[in-house]
């Protein structure tokens, strides 16, 4: 108990939680945009892998850090275009295409990695984004290290939640996106194209997923490993459900989840943790995600047209 209190009172714990949450926040917002427009994007896992690699590789090849983030964004949008075109105008199964895009993005990444770096045994490192402490605020206890001494990409993640909420709920564009996911027929009746809106949403969302991946190689770590995304994409899909398809609640979910993840890492190092198998701690995030899905199942407000292909002139 005392060990637990020690963990919770350390600023490093809260800082770690926010750091772990950052890639999840980007990718969860990305998935949320896709699903609000009516398209399930199971390409998320692979797109995060591609984003992680693309951003890192761009910096390793001599580009600056922010151009690197832009490269990741662009690569994510390209895979989003593939997913969008196949699922929206062609109306293919969103499940099958999504898994196909994950396979495609992952395999393309590994292939390119091997082509670009054939000889290396240990992947090279880059100089990642440095923390940017905000004067005065970063000196606050607990909150300071957690919220005001992170890398700029973390601040961007929070900004991204704000932007997504504002756009979704306060602009005509957001209304069109939400309507495409609830009642696509009404959108067409307004003279707008459901196809264009959905493809656009999937591309924007996929770009954010890739930036989430890039956070791993350019902010959390400084190198690219295979398996480094390790199911984070699937967890983000669970987080969207947990957040009831609302940006604010999804952010809360990501923070909560990351808090548990940071906690399990620290609990492993306590005397209790030494007695229990470490795999139990590692499994905790996945178990929590399933529990969250179960807990939310009754109250979930799924976008009405999620996974329903829209074809003009068809009822």
């Amino acid at each position, binding site marked *: 108990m005392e060990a637990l209190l020690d963990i919770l009172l350390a600023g490093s714990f809260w800082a770690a939680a926010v750091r772990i949450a950052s890639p999840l926040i980007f990718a969860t917002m990305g998935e949320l945009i896709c699903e609000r427009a009516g398209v399930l994007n199971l390409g998320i896992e692979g797109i995060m892998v591609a984003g992680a690699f693309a951003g890192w590789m761009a910096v390793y090849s001599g580009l600056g850090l922010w151009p690197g983030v832009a490269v990741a964004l662009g690569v994510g949008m390209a895979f989003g275009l593939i997913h969008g075109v196949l699922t929206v*105008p*062609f109306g293919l199964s969103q499940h099958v295409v999504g898994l196909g895009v994950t396979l495609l993005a992952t395999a393309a990444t590994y292939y390119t990695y091997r082509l670009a770096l*054939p000889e290396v045994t240990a992947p090279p490192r880059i100089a990642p984004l440095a923390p940017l402490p905000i004067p005065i605020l970063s000196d606050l206890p607990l909150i300071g290290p957690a919220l005001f001494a992170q890398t700029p990409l973390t601040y961007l993640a929070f900004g991204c939640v704000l932007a997504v909420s504002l756009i979704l709920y306060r602009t005509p564009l957001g209304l069109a996106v939400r309507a495409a996911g609830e009642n696509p027929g009404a959108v067409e009746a307004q003279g707008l*194209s459901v196809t264009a809106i959905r493809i656009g949403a999937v591309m924007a969302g996929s770009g954010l997923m890739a930036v989430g991946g890039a956070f791993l190689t350019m902010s959390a770590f400084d190198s690219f490993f295979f398996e480094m995304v390790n199911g984070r994409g699937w967890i983000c899909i669970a987080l969207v459900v947990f957040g009831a398809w609302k940006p604010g609640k999804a952010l809360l979910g990501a923070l909560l989840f990351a808090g548990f993840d940071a906690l399990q890492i620290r609990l492993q190092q306590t005397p209790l943790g030494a007695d229990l198998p470490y795999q139990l701690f590692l499994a905790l995030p*996945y178990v929590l995600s399933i529990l969250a899905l179960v807990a939310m199942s009754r109250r979930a407000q799924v976008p009405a047209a999620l996974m329903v292909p829209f074809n003009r002139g*068809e009822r």
Partner: protein
Amino acid sequence: MAMTGPAMRLERIIAPSWSRRLGLPALALVATVAIAAWLAWLAGAAPLTVLGLIVDGAAGSKFALLETLNRATPLIFTGLAVAVAFRARLWNIGAEAQLYAGAVVTVLLGTGAIVLPAPLLLPLIVGAAMLAGAALLLGPALLKTRLGVDEVVTTLLLNFIFLLFVSYLLEGPMKDPMGMGWPKSERLVDAARLPRIAEGLRLHWGFGLALICAAIVWVIQARTTLGYEIRAVGLNARAARFAGVPVNAVILKTAFLSGGLAALAGFSEVAGLKGALTLDLSPGFGYTGIVVAMLALLHPLAVVVSAIFVAGIFVGADSMSRAADVPTYIADLLLAVALLLMVLAIKMTGFRLVRG
């Protein structure tokens, strides 16, 4: 942003011509081969040489062909597992975990815990392994039917959880004390090993069992009420319910069948090929099973052909990458391309994209 965009819609083709029905999938295959050539060229190798090396490595000799069939065996099982489930629109992405569940049970019962002659022991292990795999999918299936929890995410997350559990077993209770510290189980007793199909032939009875399973699944789908009900649920669950099909019961039965089939992949790999369980038993056979099933259009007999084709690409690419300087990941990349192009081609046999 242009929210108006081009006005396109799909129009159903009432009676697609044979040239359309055969031509489009053929075009998808040709495009995949062309992309393979391009990828080889990107790697700085001669495209035709690389393609030739892949074919040669997959089927160029008796040894290569047997290697391909061995690799195809688990893929037939996982491909069938996915085909059965997807047909009922039960999105089982958890074949990887179910495979390991079968493997764990095979080791539990086959390392001396039960002393029986092979003709009794093997069926017992098969039954228990199938039950374990089925049990693992039953959870997500129940969550889907009872609470409406999406099974894609739950089965995916269970893969990670179960693999960590296997890692715990192999470092703890199931670790071979003679394993020199490697996380590896004890070896199976002889009576628990699947024999080879013929003396001196490097192919075990797991392959035979896979063919038998494909035939059984085909019979279930084509000739039984359950098969009919599975199709009905997959095509339109609401209409099926209205017509008196017990939709939830059908989904649970499907889950049972699907999980059981995936578990047999684990059984066959341990009892037929490896003889013990390690954490690298499956290089993603569960996930590749999805590609196998989709390329086979979810038809159980076509799964066999598709699994051999997919296995050939993997085995061929492995052997090619040893000879030419092209990464072996070209195999995964080609399968992803083949999958996406094939699903598109199949859809477009029945529809055309028109303006308006």
